[in-house]
């Protein structure tokens, strides 16, 4: 019941917040549209994205909104169908990274002592080892990454940034009076962490989710682009791989390569805009100057 009320409260607050903040609203609309495309891709694809039955290398027209590939596939349908994989990877990797960051970052701050030292060192080491080369090396031995292998590798390499930020904020909250009061009441550590410590950090946790999701989208697209993903799946990165291997830019089919790139950029921008807006929630000093004035009058 309590959790439900909290959730409703959060939804109401975020809705009011979107109405006020244009960046957040733009980000939310982008993500909503892409979620609809993810759930019902077949409603929006005029052609079968895999069928190689159209005139190869056609320019854009009403029947082929973005032209066709040199294999005779419809580019527009491929872009729509590719939405699902990028969105799924963003959501799943973002979620798992956030869970891991929360567990590691907050337990480091809450436990303190040598546990904190150990976990912080681990976080910092994972943070500075360059992620993408590491991913390339891991996937390089296996030749190609399936969806779940990609998820695993991205989570394995992507949790540290959030863990570091959450630890710092949890440290600053740890000795606040209300937390000490909860401990003095004899509440369990579990209660103190979940009910007293985590709720004030919600906006930072959400920002971390969005940051990890953005990282997952860009890294997975890069991996597929260089041919280390499964090259037979429908995704934006794979489209770019085929476009690059068939010299789409050089042979007068720029849309084949540019359309999936723009799609990645749209998803990325949606996540980044929301992320930035949440930054402004967590740090009121960053809010646009004019908005602050308006509020002080009201």
């Amino acid at each position, binding site marked *: 019941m309590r959790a439900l009320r909290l959730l409703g409260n959060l939804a109401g607050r975020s809705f009011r917040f979107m109405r006020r903040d244009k*960046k957040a609203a733009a980000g939310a609309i982008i993500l909503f549209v892409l979620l609809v495309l993810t759930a019902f891709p077949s409603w929006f694809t005029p052609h079968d994205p895999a069928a190689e039955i159209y005139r190869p290398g056609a320019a854009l027209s009403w029947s082929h909104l973005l032209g066709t590939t040199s294999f005779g596939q419809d580019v527009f349908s491929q872009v729509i169908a590719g939405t699902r994989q990028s969105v799924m990877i963003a959501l799943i990797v973002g979620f798992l990274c956030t869970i891991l960051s929360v567990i590691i970052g907050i337990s480091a701050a809450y436990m303190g002592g040598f546990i904190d030292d150990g976990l912080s*060192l681990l976080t*910092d*080491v994972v*943070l*500075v*080892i*360059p*992620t*993408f*080369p*590491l991913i*390339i*090396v*891991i*996937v*390089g*031995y*296996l*030749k190609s990454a399936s969806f779940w292998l990609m998820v695993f590798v991205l989570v394995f390499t992507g949790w540290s*940034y959030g863990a570091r930020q959450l630890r710092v904020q949890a440290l600053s909250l740890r000795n606040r009076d209300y937390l000490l009061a909860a401990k003095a009441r004899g509440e369990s550590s579990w209660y103190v962490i979940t009910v007293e410590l985590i709720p004030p950090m919600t906006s930072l946790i959400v920002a971390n989710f969005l940051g990890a999701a*953005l990282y997952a989208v*860009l*890294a997975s*697209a*890069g991996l597929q*682009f*260089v*041919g*280390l993903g499964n090259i037979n799946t429908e995704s934006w990165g794979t489209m*770019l791989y085929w476009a*690059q291997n068939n010299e789409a*830019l*050089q042979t007068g089919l*720029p849309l084949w*390569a*540019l359309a999936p*790139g*723009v799609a*990645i*950029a749209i998803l*990325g*921008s949606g*996540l*980044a*805009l929301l992320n*930035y807006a949440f*930054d402004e929630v967590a*740090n009121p*000093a*960053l809010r*646009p*100057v*004019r908005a602050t004035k308006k509020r002080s009058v009201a």
Partner: protein
Amino acid sequence: MRFLARRLGFLLIALWAAMTVNFLIPRLMPGNPAEAMMGRLRGHINPASLKALEVAFGINTHQSLISSYFQYLNNCVHLNFGISLLDFPEPVSHVISQALPWSLGLVGVSTILGFLIGTMLGAVAAWRRGGALDSVLPPVFIVISAFPYFFLGLLFIWFFGLTLGWFPILGGYTETVTPSLTFGFIGNILDHSILPAFTILITSIGGWILTMRNNMITVVAEDYVKMGRAKGLKPRRILWQYAGRNALLPNLTGFAMSLGFVISGAILVEYVFNYPGLGFLLLQAVENEDYPLMQALFLLITVAVLVAIFIADIATALLDPRTRTTS
């Protein structure tokens, strides 16, 4: 000094972790993939090199995991990474040394320029809060920093290279020209580096602008900035020597922390432009199952990032007296 000693210790631990990961990954893979590679090599290289590769990948060894681990670490420290398959039978270190200057020149210069320009723009944007820079830069660069690096590269190739024909699109220099130390050849190299350099610069600059702007907003509200104004100091002096200097500190740490991301993007930029640097080499090594080269490149890129982080630490120590005195 204690600060720097701690940071140096961290550098060594991170380096050790990277080497250990490198050692463990091939051993954790199902059906050791390096085994097939070794089959192709046997009889073609001298026994000593073969031995080093067997130690690195854990094949055919009669020694325990522990002792081959220490032997592997020892080989790494002596830069003995074995033989490259891509450029057989050159040693890996030789293949890498040919690609290294290209990456240092391209990625090094554009990353540092991006950091400097971004930091300055961010500081000025925050200084004139609500001004033109402050309202235009953040949203524009939030969107651009969400672009995949390689996509911006493709866009540049298509627009500036193919449509307008202003710049060459592939390679580090024109293949038909013999490399020499003449102005013509250096011009040729610069010509080839402009598009990839701008790709890295533009995608990386946004992060520095945003973090510097955010730090600066906090710092500008501090009392000592008000004090500077009250004393009637020139705004330029307050901007750079009072506020800027302090706002730069977190940005330097941020620089160190996000360098890995920039390098990751640079690998793809090199790939898109077929630029003969380390990133392109890494992907070629993967494609050709050149595992020794792959391992060595991963270590080298890690070392490069760690050294850059250490330099950022030294800069922090120079700028911030607090790190020098306490803990």
